[in-house]
């Protein structure tokens, strides 16, 4: 990933100089840029290339629109090799032109060379080659949009992010991965028992989850690099609801081997560093603040679930919520907000965002089934959560004000507990 960005910067510097600066400033002022997005070209016009070119353009379009930074124009003259009709695109009001060539070099290898031009100056802002195997050509479009966004906003957006969740379509709950746009679904457990509560490591290389594979709720870590599932904690009793610290060095989990289900800090090997909470309580769903200094969790201390916060040294325990049944808290990446589900004793929950600075609580969902387990997108602009608003439980994505809410993917069975990874 890092090497990819380096290559991209080199290209950007060589070809652009200061081109695109005015466009960058325009975005900083909150104005949307207009991108001209003609069809992607199939280099040799083979069937496979034309198919891939169409698919890559479609993915690029939806990723660009999802970013809410750009407006798109698609009608205009198709750029030919070495000949681009900038004037016609300029008349259509476009600021930027994207062209892409798609090439099927070897049997299962697809390449995409994407170029971005500033229309006013007719100069290249950047050009980059992407390659992939035939299984996941979409990835190239996701990476291209991330590069483009990084060039104009300083942040790579969400187009390369994935979510993990559990789903019971096989008859039991297993853990799955899916791209942020609901494509490229992959199952990562085959435990045939109960695999639940996935959470990403901060680097996006691992997922920790709870599985009953050995007839006890134990914690396992899945490695995306190696495709392995390793035991993390298999103490007697409950080993569940684990979550990584922001630096990835420490985890918090619910263990019950010493008595009641309380919170513990563990190192990467699963050894206990410290017991954080004590007493006859159900303490769970813990996650770290982005500065790594505090932990938010749910506890039945009052006799029903409420949100609590504690320092990572076990001091300063405080209650944060004061009404209803509050559950499944999560910290925003910026640290200024927490999201959780708040409900009644009838089991209907709504997602709320609690602003820690102003103290204001905004309700994101309203009367559409029961909504649980919010997870912030890595840029803090969206939430994923589960909802049973359409007869079954599914994963939804929502803007923070709740105005845009959409289903993540169509999938058999019920889906639970999304975790939005980097």
């Amino acid at each position: 990933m890092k090497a990819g960005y380096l290559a991209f910067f080199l290209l950007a510097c060589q070809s652009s100089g200061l081109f695109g600066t005015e466009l960058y400033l325009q975005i900083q002022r909150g104005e949307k840029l207009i991108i001209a997005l003609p069809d992607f070209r199939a280099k040799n016009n083979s069937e496979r290339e034309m198919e891939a070119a169409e698919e890559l353009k479609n993915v690029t379009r939806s990723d660009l629109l999802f970013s809410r930074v750009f407006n798109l124009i698609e009608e205009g003259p198709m750029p030919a090799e070495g000949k681009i009709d900038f004037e016609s695109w300029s008349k259509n009001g476009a600021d930027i032109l994207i062209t892409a060539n798609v090439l099927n070099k070897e049997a299962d290898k697809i390449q995409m060379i994407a170029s971005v031009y500033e229309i006013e100056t007719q100069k290249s802002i950047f050009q980059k080659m992407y390659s992939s195997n035939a299984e996941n050509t979409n990835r190239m479009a996701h990476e291209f949009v991330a590069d483009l966004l990084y060039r104009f906003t300083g942040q790579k957006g969400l187009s390369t992010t994935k979510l993990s969740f559990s789903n019971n379509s096989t008859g039991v709950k297993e853990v799955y991965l899916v791209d942020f746009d609901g494509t490229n679904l992959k199952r990562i457990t085959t435990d045939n028992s109960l695999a639940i509560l996935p959470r990403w490591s901060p680097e996006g290389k691992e997922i920790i989850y709870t599985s009953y594979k050995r007839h006890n709720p134990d914690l396992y870590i899945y490695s995306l690099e190696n495709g392995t599932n390793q035991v993390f904690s298999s103490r007697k009793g409950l080993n569940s609801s684990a979550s990584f610290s922001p630096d990835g060095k420490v985890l918090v989990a619910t263990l019950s081997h010493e008595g009641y289900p309380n919170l513990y800090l563990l190192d990467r090997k699963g050894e206990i560093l410290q017991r954080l909470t004590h007493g006859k309580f159900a303490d769970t769903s813990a996650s770290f603040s982005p500065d790594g200094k505090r932990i938010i969790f749910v506890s039945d201390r009052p006799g029903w679930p409420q949100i609590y916060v504690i320092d990572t040294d076990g001091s300063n325990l405080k209650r944060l919520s004061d009404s209803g049944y509050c559950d499944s808290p999560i910290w925003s990446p910026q640290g200024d907000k927490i999201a959780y589900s708040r409900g009644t004793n009838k089991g209907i929950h709504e997602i709320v965002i609690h602003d820690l600075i102003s103290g204001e609580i905004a309700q994101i969902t309203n009367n559409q089934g029961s909504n649980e387990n919010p997870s912030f997108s890595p840029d803090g602009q969206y939430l994923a959560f589960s909802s049973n608003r359409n007869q079954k439980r599914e994963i939804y994505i929502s803007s923070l004000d709740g105005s845009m809410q959409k289903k993540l993917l169509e999938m058999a069975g019920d889906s639970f507990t999304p975790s939005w990874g980097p």
Partner: protein
Amino acid sequence: MERFLQSKWISALFISLLSLSLTACPKKQTVKKIPEPAQKIQEVVETEELDVHGKDFETSKNLDAIYFDYDSSDLSEQARQSLSSNAEYIKKLKNTEILIEGHCDERGTIAYNLALAQKRAQSVRRYYLSLGLDPKKVGTLSYGKEKPICLESSEECWLKNRRAESKLLAPKVANGSKDPEKNQTER
């Protein structure tokens, strides 16, 4: 000796109930740790728990399930009576390993219900130990809301699902251990 244990148990239960009632005020911003003595007793008992990894347990007609109030792991008088007769039956079996499975109704999240059902299983285990069952032979397992026996969203169904089941170790299968960990390597 048994009497001593019993009285120690009742006082431990009393202390933890007392500490719970002290912290039950919903407006309170901070919650104090429960008193040391209760904790110590609790830890001594819990570490002797039966490890249920890789073991299969099965229901028995002679062991009754017990039921809980919403969001509670306290044992009702009726639950105690059922557990007493369960304990009598278990004692007759001699040396049998027992699993207590804790369950919840569908309300609340998966993670919260896992923790709550673990508390329920532990309440039962503590009561069994107070009746003289061998701590090393009694294990707990929380299923949270994952294994409901009734699927409707009604008070009636919820009550049936808020339960703890006592199960007996299943007879061994001819093919050795059923623990997948021991038969095959992790993938």
